[in-house]
């Protein structure tokens, strides 16, 4: 966790591909050499709606993966859920569209220096950055297991290639339409014990992250959580995106999730105080 991602730059980037995957849209965007600066956990902020848009704010999306190809140079992949008017606009853009993107933003997942057992837990589109993370961890010699959850099967994002990087993948859906019926958190306590998990990386809705932390707080397992608060600017100037976090002395302050996050030390986030006055 650091301060200001100094790699951030504002660019006009070309949308190279836009494909439907389940209930999501997979966007591949050409960002040139900036792809080298993107780390798992970082996010991007994109202008939406075009020139005469009534939407004045950028939209934030986790970088799912980056790659360098001979044809396109550096690209990044986003997995976008068509939620409201801004994300829907983005999902409707055709190949070749120019997007105004600020990238990369925010903190990245901390990578262990030792090869340890890592459990990656994703909710909905929260799985997107976990596959890129899995590759990095795997390259460090970590054992990587993954749990994905969603309300229904079409909201599970789990690409074929991604699965190669993980030792195991279990899927939970609330309606039982894919994998097991239930929630990802049901499985975590046993997995921690069975696999001797050292670190959990999580990304998904805040209640899911809080539930995971309730489990890890009773153990030695490190919890790196990618939080999600409504963001107006994405670059640290508006103070809308704050999350209550304790420092080493125990003092709680409201940290900006766009600069001191999205990846935060789950043990320090005051999950019960999220959305409340301190």
């Amino acid at each position: 966790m650091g301060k200001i991602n100094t790699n951030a730059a504002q660019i006009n980037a070309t949308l190279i591909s836009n494909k439907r995957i389940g209930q999501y849209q997979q966007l591949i965007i050409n960002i040139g050499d900036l792809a080298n600066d993107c780390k798992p956990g970082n996010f991007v902020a994109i202008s939406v709606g075009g020139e005469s848009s009534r939407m004045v704010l950028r939209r934030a999306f986790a970088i799912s993966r980056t790659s360098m190809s001979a044809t396109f140079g550096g690209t990044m992949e986003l997995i976008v859920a068509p939620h409201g008017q801004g994300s829907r606009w983005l999902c409707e853009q055709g190949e070749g569209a120019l997007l105004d993107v600020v990238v990369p933003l925010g903190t990245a997942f901390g990578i262990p220096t030792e090869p340890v057992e890592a459990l990656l837990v994703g909710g909905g589109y929260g799985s997107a950055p976990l596959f890129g993370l899995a590759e990095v961890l795997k390259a460090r010699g970590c054992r990587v297991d993954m749990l994905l959850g969603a309300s229904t099967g079409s909201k599970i994002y789990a690409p074929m290639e991604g699965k190669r990087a993980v030792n195991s993948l279990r899927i939970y859906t609330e309606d039982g339409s894919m994998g097991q019926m239930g929630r990802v958190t049901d499985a975590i306590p046993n997995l921690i014990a069975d696999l001797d998990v050292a670190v959990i990386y999580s990304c998904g809705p805040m209640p899911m992250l809080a539930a995971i932390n309730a489990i890890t707080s009773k153990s030695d397992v490190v919890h790196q959580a990618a939080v999600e608060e409504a963001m107006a600017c994405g670059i640290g100037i508006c103070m809308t995106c704050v999350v209550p976090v304790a420092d080493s002395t125990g003092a709680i302050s409201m940290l900006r999730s766009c600069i001191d996050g999205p990846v935060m030390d789950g043990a320090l986030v005051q999950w019960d105080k999220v959305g409340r006055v301190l």
Partner: protein
Amino acid sequence: MTSLDFSTTLGNSWFPSPVFTASGCASSGRELAQFFALHDIGGVVTKSVMNKARTGRQTPRMAETPSGMLNSIGLQGPGIDAFIAVDIPYLIEQRARIIVSIAGETIEEYSTLARKLRGVAGISAVEVNISCPNVENRGLVFACDSDASKRVIDGVRRTIGGELPIIAKLSPDVTDLISIARGVVDAGADALALINTVLGMVINLETMRPHLGGKTGGLSGPAIRPIAVRAVYQVHEALPAVPILGMGGISSGRDALEFIAAGASAVSIGTASFGNPTALLTIQRELRELLVAKGFVSLRDAVGCAHRDQDAH
């Protein structure tokens, strides 16, 4: 291009460009500095700082609205001591022109802030935010009460001495803006900042409750621009000698020129920076080009020009 005098003054402070950040929309400058040099814009108006550190309101603190947004930050900040120790030196190092915005819950708090700022070198002006609708004490927005406004400015003026320009920042949520403006000028304000956000609310249709943690929030962005231009025009008409720092929904050089023509000597850019981190540079460049294209030789000649040539229309 080079022959345009783009400089401006607020009170006795000189600025090479009339394009500033808006308080609360640039933090303390550090975060924007990765997108452009703070020295390259007119000035940095810092986030309103209070005497003590403050954690602010609960989230959600924002809601996007048509061509605007609501915010309800609640003046989160480090407190004036940390601000002076950490942020001022940084801004000086960046050679930024610094306008410190202060906010208080009591008239004494404003005076205390003024006292602490008094000895600090490198500041170009103090903006006194008496209009933030987000302070806990609702119903007690200073800027909605002519008498309270005057007393705040009077206290700051006495404490800070005659040197540093004082910019009183007013709220548009009043029946008679001109009388409030007149009052704070009489009390010692050298300039006026117009406008702060307009009080608004969004209902979340999932929860069927007010969306913001703080229920109401301040409306900013292009949606309020006509209100802001009207405020600047009215106040400049009534008090033509008082410089105005205009703001509210500026997101292009054309928008900025509307404010200048209405009577602003400088402009602040707030919400536009959220949508575009380099908005200040773009707006500054566009404004300069527009002034040149329209044949102005100095920014000063354009200030308030919409009030002149009554027959031109």
